């Protein structure tokens, strides 16, 4: 086992473990912290996959943006002074059966599919190339994404305000 393999297992364990905390802990704030570490773990996975730019974006946006947003959501809608920041679960048994089934289906499919592996496994910086693609081939999706963000901004402000 070389270093990258060890790193994969460390990051995978971090991701799955934190995600487990996030899913199974009853306190919403703990869940948010679990999610934080899961995001970090996924960022590590991206690094192993030679996606340095995505890894940075993952930390910047997910950790810096979305997670903060989620915490605000928790705090605005729940009274932290009361201890009732818990989340309850429902339909546990059918959920375990069905989600277990979905996981089994996915794993079966992954293991039974003959993937056509190809290409070199070099590590190269991607930021410059992605930037170039964004301004050339993916210019229109890029612009549409900016319009989408603007629309989401306005829409969120409109929906959230008090009448």
């Amino acid at each position, binding site marked *: 086992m070389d270093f990258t*393999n060890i790193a*994969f*297992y460390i990051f995978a364990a971090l991701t799955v473990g934190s*995600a*487990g905390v*996030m*899913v199974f802990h009853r306190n*919403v704030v703990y*869940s948010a912290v679990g*999610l934080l570490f899961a995001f970090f773990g*996924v960022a590590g*996975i*991206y690094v192993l*996959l*030679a*996606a340095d730019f*995505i890894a940075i*974006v*993952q930390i910047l*946006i*997910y950790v810096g*943006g979305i997670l903060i*947003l*989620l915490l605000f*959501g928790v705090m605005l*809608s729940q009274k932290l002074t009361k201890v009732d920041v818990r*989340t*309850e*679960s*429902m339909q546990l048994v059918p*959920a*375990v059966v*069905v*989600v*277990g089934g*979905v*996981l089994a289906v*996915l794993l079966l499919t*992954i293991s039974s599919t003959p*993937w056509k*592996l*190809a*290409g070199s*496994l070099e590590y190269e910086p*991607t930021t410059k*190339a*992605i930037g170039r*693609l*964004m301004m050339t081939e*993916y210019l229109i999706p890029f612009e549409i*994404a900016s319009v*989408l*963000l603007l629309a*989401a*901004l306005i*829409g*969120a402000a409109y*929906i*959230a305000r*008090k009448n």
Partner: protein
Amino acid sequence: MEVGLNHYLALAAILFSLGLFAVVTKKNAVTVLMGVELILNAANINFVAFARFIDTDLDGQIIAVFVIVTAAAAAAVALAIVLNLYERLKSINLDEADSLAG
């Protein structure tokens, strides 16, 4: 054992299932949203892994960037909806938002 594509896909599948479980079982709307984020992360791992192992250009990574953008937009709108829900029901428990019930 050498870590390959299947490992990453399996990790993504597990992450996906955990997110799905949260989405299906949690009463708290914010927790459901966290589950959705987990699912999106799982999908992103798939994109990046395929971009690395099968189609060795940057298309997969670009898609991942767009997924993150979309996720940010979705989180913003969804939280706005949650706040609005809280205004109306004084609760963000999804089992109380059941006006679709037959």
